[in-house]
């Protein structure tokens, strides 16, 4: 049955009958057939007993994992290698990396930089994390907006971390200034699509919170406890809601 599936699909291409597969991401159903809705490699996720009877057909937004491992993890960019770009919106339970843009008494505003995998536990293998914006070559051409730097944040999705979503314990004793500072990079989990302009994010888990921060002196700090980070040069500690390092 699987042999009849094409390896690559383009939008509008019929993939198979809806009676033998269930439609996954990147597909749609039309007159009891599954059609591709994006271009990409066709994947077949085996049926999971009890939950699903049918195998799920989906069109992947990422290149195959075979391809991912080929890419050198660190070091120079393989300049000429085209990498797939694809768009992922933040969805409920998405893990995101975001930069703090405004700290207020009741909430902090952040701008979402990277949407990580949907799976709630990220730690397992970050290199395999299906990151949205994986195309280094494309980042290098476009990351900075030459026109106006304040503009870049308007091109990113905005989100709020409300006071009650900062941590799971002692919620009423949270002081926002001791949790986040502008410029920190925060890992959070999306709890709601929110209103027209903001998503809502929580950091109320041990693995969520500030992952990168600079001290007042401008140096990168390292975490020393769940509520403190320290400047390696000056030795001064600063309070933060720190994400548990792996």
């Amino acid at each position, binding site marked *: 049955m699987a042999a009849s599936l094409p390896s690559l699909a383009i*939008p509008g291409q019929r993939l198979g009958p809806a009676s033998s597969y269930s439609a996954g991401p990147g597909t*749609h159903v*039309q007159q009891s057939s599954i059609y591709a809705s994006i271009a990409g490699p066709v994947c077949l996720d085996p049926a999971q007993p009890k939950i699903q009877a049918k195998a799920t057909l989906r069109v992947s937004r990422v290149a195959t994992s075979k391809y991912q491992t080929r890419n050198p993890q660190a070091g120079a960019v393989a300049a000429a290698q085209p990498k797939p770009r694809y*768009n992922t919106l933040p969805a409920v339970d998405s893990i995101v990396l975001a930069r703090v843009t405004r700290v207020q008494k009741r909430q902090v505003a952040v701008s979402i930089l990277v949407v990580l995998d949907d799976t709630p536990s990220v730690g397992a293998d970050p290199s395999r994390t299906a990151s949205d914006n994986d195309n280094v070559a494309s980042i290098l051409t476009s990351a900075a907006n030459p026109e106006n730097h304040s503009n870049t944040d308007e*091109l990113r*999705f*905005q989100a709020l971390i409300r006071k009650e979503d900062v941590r799971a314990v002692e919620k009423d004793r949270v002081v926002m200034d001791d949790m986040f500072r502008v410029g920190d990079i925060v890992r959070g989990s999306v709890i709601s699509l929110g209103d027209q302009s903001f998503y809502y994010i929580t950091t109320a888990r041990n693995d969520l919170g500030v992952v990168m921060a600079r001290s007042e002196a401008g140096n990168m700090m390292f975490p020393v406890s769940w509520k403190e980070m320290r400047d390696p040069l000056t030795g001064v500690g600063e309070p933060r809601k720190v994400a548990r390092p792996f």
Partner: protein
Amino acid sequence: MTDRRRINGPPGGTRPAVYASLLQSATGAADRAQRQRQPTDLRKIFLKTGLIPSASGSSYLEFEPSASLAAARANPKSLIPPSSALKLACTVHGPKPLPRSATFSPNLVLTTHVKYAPFAARRRKGHIRDASERDLGVHLETALRGAIIAERWPKSGLDITLTIIEAEDDRWWGDAPDSHDASWGMMNVLAGCITAASAALADAHIDCLDLVSGGVAALVSEDMTGSSGPPRLVLDTDPAEHRSIVSACVVAYMPARDEITELWLKGDSSKAALEDDDKRPGHEALIDGAVDAARGAHTVLGQAVRESIARTVGSA
């Protein structure tokens, strides 16, 4: 009022060059370009995706120059080009957050924008979008909106921008260059825009029901006396090659579902001269012709999208 944000030319204004050969006789020194293709033959389309890395999706489309233009290019004699061939670039930006002022939308909000380069047409275009460019933008938006699965992208916006680098002529330059009875060239431009935008959307991985493609068909009358002869049905018309276009139609078409998302028919299609056993009314024949042209464009489109996917995956 002068545009203070741009560099303006001489305040008195300038005039386009007038060629002496045009004044001497109405038909001019050169002969009208003749269509070399069969009525059902389409021009070749060059389509490539992903050329603009800072956009989430992009494409570049070019029509093959018609025989007369290709000949004029290979062996240039006159400064007046016999016809022109569509060249356009399309970018897709997004999905991105909606502006702060916008209200909540559970769907993808599509914005389309078509702009001619000032040097795209025989007549210099202004920098500010004119009515025909806005019109093209609206037509394009309806064509695409029917194909995009908008509910998969809540509260986000998508900007599609098309830059026409070279447009199609509205008619042959020798035929009363000032008259603008109908902008037939615009229909070819729209068909090209639809096909290119569809490729750019696929490049951006925006969910679509199908690759929607554009096609043009027209009823043309070759009779020198004007439109008195019965007009013939011709696919993918180059307006510069025909004496008189009686009616034309452009469609945006999804072959997988056999659906038309946009239809734009102009002119009088009632007098079509079809085969004897063909009992279709003129407009139906015209629409069918445009759909056939769109099917032709779809094969190019599918190939271009497949190639770009194969490039990213196949290099593994």
